């Protein structure tokens, strides 16, 4: 069963077209990597799916219901959590507060506490820093916190925008293995946007390759990785 269906999606920033007729599907519980260079439209795609950006035409549905033109705060209530680009934490709040805000809308304190505990089990370093202000965290810890906050919202679909950006290789490995772990243990559907093509496709089930706003290839992640033409043209090695 397809959970996320994107059909002929076109999005513009003013006069500039960011995405043109992009179509792909993501199955329930699947991890899809969206790969492409700077300016390929990856971030625009996620921002459109999470309600931060309006589409020009096309459609996108999550579990057979339209998600275009909805508010992000409403989509969170339907199980869609977006970790936006650049360590999306609130530096002025403490680590704990950053986690708590993900659960405020549910008005279920014990449920939120339980979800926070689970996030801390996944990223133990957060547990040591709960009362610290988030701006004292390193880049990797911030990324963990951002994903942790999204998890406290109890998502069914997790949209991740370049979690590896600016991080050391060892940390990237930790974050990616945590993402894979989440997908399998919580049966999460994940859309992972990455420039770090190989690492992303290695943990992904399927992949979507974007170039200048157009979809150039999609399919099984292993096949995409093995395709020599794609390798030299888009995967950059």
């Amino acid at each position, binding site marked *: 069963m397809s959970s996320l269906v994107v059909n002929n999606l076109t999005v513009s920033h003013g006069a500039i077209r960011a995405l043109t007729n992009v179509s792909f599907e993501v199955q329930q519980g699947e991890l899809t990597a969206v790969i492409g260079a700077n300016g390929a439209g990856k971030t625009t795609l996620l921002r459109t799916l999470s309600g931060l950006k309006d589409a020009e035409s096309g459609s996108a549905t999550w579990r057979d219901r339209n998600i275009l033109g909805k508010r992000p705060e409403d989509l969170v209530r339907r199980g869609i959590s977006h970790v936006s680009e650049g360590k999306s934490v609130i530096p002025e709040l403490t680590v704990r507060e950053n986690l708590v805000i993900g659960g405020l809308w549910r008005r279920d304190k014990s449920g939120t506490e339980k979800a926070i505990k689970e996030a801390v089990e996944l990223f133990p370093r957060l547990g040591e820093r709960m009362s610290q202000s988030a*701006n004292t965290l390193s880049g990797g810890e911030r990324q963990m916190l951002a994903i942790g906050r999204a998890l406290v919202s109890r998502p069914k679909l997790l949209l991740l925008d370049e979690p590896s950006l600016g991080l050391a290789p060892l940390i990237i490995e930790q974050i990616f293995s945590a993402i894979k772990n989440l997908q399998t243990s919580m049966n999460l559907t994940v859309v992972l946007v990455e420039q770090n093509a190989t690492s992303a496709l290695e943990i992904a089930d399927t992949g979507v390759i974007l170039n200048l706003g157009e979809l150039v290839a999609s399919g099984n992640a292993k096949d995409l990785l093995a395709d020599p033409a794609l390798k030299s043209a888009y995967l950059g090695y």
Partner: protein
Amino acid sequence: MRQLIGTLLIGLTLGSIYSLMALALVLVWRSTRVVNFAQAGQAIVTTYIAYEIVTRTGVFWLAVLFAVVAGALLGAGVEYFLMRTLFRHVDEGPVAALAPVIATLGLLGVIKSLVGMIWGNDFRSFYPPVSTDNFVLFGETIPFSRFNILVILSTTVVMIIFSFIFQRTDLGLSLRAAAFQPEIARLAGIRVGPIRTIGWVFAGVAGAIAGVLITPNDVLSPASLDVLLVFGFVAAVIGGLESLPGAVLGGVVLGIGVSFVLNYVGTTLIFPTVFVVLLLALIFKPNGLLGSKKVRSA
């Protein structure tokens, strides 16, 4: 010594009222990035409402209650009907940053003229609930009254309530999250629109209380809160414009500064002093008195 203590006490009284106005301006700034000049206009309306209640019933606290409710409604109304409409139509470019500020300035003018049309431009007195006569201690007069004590106590209670809401409640956390990073707050599921309105409501309440507390020591006229607006704004800037404790501290520092100039120099130098204090704060503490932001970038 007697004069020094008196000066400090007066400074504390003035400062606590400036703090309330500063708090109102900071609340609006944090929630919508608008410098709300109309805050003085909203407060003058609520103070006239309080004046009507207190002259008819003689019950000061009933007047405060009415002022607070009116302040809350006015704050919500200005945000909902004026600001939202404006943001819907101008949302890009330098105009988007400037238009709301100019709109609040315009609104201040409109409110003041309306108040002048309704209540007239003459000075009115607002009777305090307790005496404004100065205390006499060991045969000497101290420039400090029962009403001043009431002002300090009331503002302290208001500050405690505000800090409880902001630091200890889910609503306060939502307000802070929406103020610092509205986009992330929305992605976390916080309804930022209504939260912004609540920010304006709290600001309206703080401004209304500032208005009813400063007027018994002064006179009431459509323009009588203009100076409070200026001083509140300076206090907010001294405090860093982002910080609620900073606004309170900024108000107290400014109040004590103004009081010293009043008692030791004279009224003519008050505005230049405020200006100098503002400049010094901006030069030496541009992030605010409590601001020492060191953001780790790695």
